[in-house]
């Protein structure tokens, strides 16, 4: 189970993201080569090593070889999970965190998309919008926290702002790259069909950059959760981060682990949601495989 703590992006995800990032759709009528045939193991094979680790964890902790304050047993963590889930602390914290993530992500998405479209489509937009965004991007995101607190107080705003700023850049950068990778031959075909600027944008430019934008969305989700965790642990009186911090103060290692597992599950769930979205929105791409 401890492994899951790092699992906001579990191993099977990493190669997929990389593949999606390099697999820009620029083919007009050319058929992208399908991945080479590779013998697949049954899906259950992937469960073997996590289960082994879980078993090892159980043996080591249940035998009393490890201080439960350092590492409680899986059973204890499960019980703590049940406790905080049923007494209402976890649902309340989860609700607050989800709201922050959603609002922050929405702001980051809208701003990132708008800036990306402006920069991708117009040279003036690129000259005006890109430099300040690139400057802001070089700042370490989490280093902004003290400034955000000074500016916006310790309420919801700094947490949401942190998520928004964090998720903005992947969306922005991928949108720009996606738009600039539009096949000029398809634009030409659109013009020859009498499409106006707005129609070219709607029928050619945006659908063509969608795969890249979705890659940005997935990266943004990962960063959004990280930003939220940091924001909530530095200064919060509610939310998952607060729950974890509180548990740390009272030496409830089991609750800390529960909080981390919940974070990991949230990461997995949102990533899965984007993958489903990708499969639906990019059906045209996979249909020939």
């Amino acid at each position, binding site marked *: 189970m401890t492994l899951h703590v790092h699992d906001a992006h579990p191993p099977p995800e990493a190669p997929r993201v990389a593949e999606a990032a390099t697999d820009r759709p620029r083919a*007009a*009528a050319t058929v992208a080569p399908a991945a080479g045939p590779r013998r697949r193991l049954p899906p259950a094979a992937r469960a073997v090593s996590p289960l082994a680790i879980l078993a090892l964890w159980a043996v080591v902790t249940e035998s009393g070889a490890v201080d439960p304050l350092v590492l409680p047993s899986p059973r204890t963590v499960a019980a703590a999970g049940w406790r905080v889930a049923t007494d209402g602390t976890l649902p309340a914290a989860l609700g607050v965190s989800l709201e922050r993530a959603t609002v922050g992500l929405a702001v980051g998405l809208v701003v990132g998309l708008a800036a990306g479209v402006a920069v991708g489509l117009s040279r003036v937009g690129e000259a005006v919008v890109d430099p300040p965004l690139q400057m802001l991007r070089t700042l370490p995101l989490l280093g902004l926290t003290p400034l955000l607190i000074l500016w916006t107080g310790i309420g919801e705003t700094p947490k949401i702002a942190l998520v928004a700023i964090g998720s903005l850049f992947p969306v922005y950068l991928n949108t720009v790259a996606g738009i600039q990778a539009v096949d000029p031959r398809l634009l030409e075909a*659109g013009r020859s069909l009498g*499409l106006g600027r707005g129609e070219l944008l709607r029928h050619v430019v945006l659908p063509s950059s969608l795969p890249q934008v979705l890659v940005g969305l997935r990266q943004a989700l990962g960063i959004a959760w990280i930003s939220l965790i940091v924001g909530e642990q530095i200064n919060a009186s509610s939310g998952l981060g607060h729950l974890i911090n509180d548990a740390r103060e009272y030496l409830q290692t089991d609750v800390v682990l529960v909080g981390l597992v919940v974070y990991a599950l949230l990461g997995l769930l949102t990533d899965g949601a984007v993958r489903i979205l990708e499969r639906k929105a990019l059906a045209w791409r996979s249909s020939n495989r």
Partner: protein
Amino acid sequence: MALVEPLTTVRPPSPREGGRPAAVRIRHLSRSFGALRVLDDVRLDVAPGEIVALVGRSGSGKSTLLRVLAGLDDGATGAIERPGSVAVAFQDARLLPWKRVAANVALGLRGPDVGARVTRVLDEVGLAERAQAWPLTLSGGEAQRASLARALAREPELLLLDEPFGALDALTRLVMHDLVLRLWERHRPAVLLVTHDVEEAIALADRVVVLDGGRLAVSVDVDLPRPRARTGPEFGRLREQLLHALGVEVPAVEVPAAEVPAVEVPGVEVTR
């Protein structure tokens, strides 16, 4: 002759208004890329319903001429008149891969009966059952049919074909030639076909024009009844004439007209 006037594009008066019978009139058309003069004072007319094939080597300017006519190149000088409705079919079909075939054909169409027009034209090119397919699942020939359907759906008075069969295999190409002629007989647009395949040009066109170094070098009328067999003395004579104009000397096929071999492989590539 160097005209440094920007390109003027006019729509010719329709015959009803008492205008001259020309779908396309090109005068003093020039286009340079830097120091390179790709089109040099070109003059060309295409009558309504006429098929003109434009042949030339790579870099002869034939594709540039087509792009100017399509309105895709605004760096040319001179004057052209062309109909209001122009459609292009490119060598790479250029279907939008994220739109199904029918949606690709419907692109840019206006009016109330778009769906019916799309269905009809897909039926005409024999793609009715592929209407809901994604473009990436089409074969090369099917993609070209879809591209032709997309061009024809706007009922163009001028159809520009930019080497539309260049990427197809020889057999598919022959089938597509038949299809284009059938469609042309039904819709009767003026057609400008850019190709580097001399046989294709002779098989399809009313007139074959050779472009060389940006200038119109030769214009040859093809006075053969359609459908045209690619054999026979007249076909061979035209081919030789055009190949000569293109600077290709075909070695010793000086066969007297009466002795043309009866068996000849159809669609043999001479110009590749």
